[in-house]
């Protein structure tokens, strides 16, 4: 225990002298890095605009209120599209994620040194690229529209779903698997009766969780042209129709809150 001796009296300290020195050096380096980053940001900022920001914000606010409520009649189809992008994207992602998860889990993968790294690479690469970037890419390949949005959401979700699923598969109770294999079950029967029932709750939870996230993401996919309510948002922004923008933002907010509520309810019922 680090103790400081001061005039013959021993005083407890949290860290020894060397430790606290190290601590200070670490903090110093951290602060220096942050100061450098801040300086870079401030260099590429037009400060005149920033000082002017309160006025601009106020201006936008007065333009955007009240929202143009009657515009909501034109938002029915975009909302339906958004829902479809999220739901179909999630379904496709789950169909693709299940085999990837089984290939990536240590206890079910057919080969640890060839197949597992490939599956892990698929998981990492689909996860680390945002759905908007996938949408950009797919629009260049298959043209703008809802279909590009569905595929973008699907690809983005594979990694996420597969990662959570393979972690669930790795945590299963091996004794059940052994019991099934002791009855002489084949490899597929072991999977169907020994592993699948154990990961089914996790699977349903992941599906609903990802669906909730996908609703959020699909609301903005339209910004790059991949369908959904984001298309309306981007066209309203382009013509500076702020009352429409505020209505769309309210609709998006409502969609996000509702989907989060649904997902919380369903997950509560499953687990």
């Amino acid at each position, binding site marked *: 225990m680090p103790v400081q001796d001061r005039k013959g009296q021993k005083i407890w300290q949290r860290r020894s002298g060397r430790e606290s020195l190290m601590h200070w050096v670490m903090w110093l380096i951290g602060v220096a890095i*942050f100061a450098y980053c801040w300086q870079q940001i401030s260099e590429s900022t037009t400060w005149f605009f920033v000082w002017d920001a309160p006025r601009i914000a106020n201006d936008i606010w007065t333009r955007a209120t009240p929202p143009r409520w009657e515009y909501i009649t034109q938002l029915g189809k975009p909302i339906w*599209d958004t829902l479809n992008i999220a739901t179909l994207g999630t379904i496709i992602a789950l169909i693709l994620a299940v085999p990837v998860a089984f290939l990536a889990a240590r206890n079910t993968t057919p080969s640890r040194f060839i197949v597992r790294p490939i599956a892990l690479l698929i998981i990492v690469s689909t996860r680390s690229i945002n759905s908007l970037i996938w949408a950009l890419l797919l629009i260049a390949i*298959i043209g703008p529209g809802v*279909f590009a949005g569905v595929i973008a959401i699907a690809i983005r979700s594979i990694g996420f779903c597969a990662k959570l699923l393979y972690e669930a598969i790795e945590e299963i109770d091996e004794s059940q698997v052994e019991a099934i294999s002791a009855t002489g079950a084949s490899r597929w029967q072991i999977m169907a009766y020994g592993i699948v029932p154990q990961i089914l709750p996790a699977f349903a939870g992941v599906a609903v969780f990802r669906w909730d996230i996908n609703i959020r993401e699909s609301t903005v996919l339209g910004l790059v042209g991949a369908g959904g309510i984001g298309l309306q948002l981007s066209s309203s922004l382009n013509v500076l129709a702020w009352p429409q923008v505020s209505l769309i933002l309210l609709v998006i907010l409502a969609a996000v809150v509702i989907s989060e509520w649904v997902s919380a309810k369903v997950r509560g019922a499953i687990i």
Partner: protein
Amino acid sequence: MSELHTLIGKKWKKPPFIQRTWLRWTLLLGFVAYLVAAFMTIDVNWSRVYEGLERGKQFVLAFTNPDFTSRSGDIWEGMIESIIMTVASSVVGIAISIPIALGAARNVAPLPVYLICRAIIAVSRALQEIIVAILLVAIFGFGPLAGFLTLSFATIGFLSKLLAEDIESMDKVQAEAIKASGAKWTQWINYGVQPQVMPRLIGLSLYRVDINFRESAILGLVGAGGIGATLNTAFDRYEYDTAAAILLIIIVIVMTLEYLSGIIRARVQ
């Protein structure tokens, strides 16, 4: 026992995932009806898709031959800006979210503070990064400042919520022992609460750095700085080899961050 008698002689069937029969069938039927409706309304231009396959092939091939050099200046600048935004926004976001997390934990904060902090968290979580970025770019002008503010704002919602949950589920005994020794409120937080939540705070912060980097890659699409602008230009000009190079760099950085955070998390826990 009687249950066993009724079961003997019958063929075993897998128990269904949803117990109630009517609920199972309504859910299934509703789902199928929805799927049919959804497929009917999606119009896919298959000839366009077919035409695009060639470009898709080019893109996949570009990954085997990424072009890091011809736009290296733009890529470098964009990447540095993304990283700077990530670091700065993570630092500021974490610094702000710690007091908010304390305020949003019911066992630390009084009710009015709790409600205010929970409201801040709810607002920050409900608004998406890209929408916040659009508004902030409109207000503060183009550049990394808008991106930095967006990411800081998003960090607050994420980190405060999870940290507050951790504080709420901490061990009361240790905190009470510190209080019993006559500690002030700040000392109580510092010696009773902080050591308990520190591993979780470090883990979450590292995870958030990872997310912030990934998000910073798209903020450029709406003019909020970072690599996104370069990436968007590369796609618009059909320079797939440059786009592939950028995507590969992003993947490598994310993988490195994940690997590092795995090591650090294993050490602190």
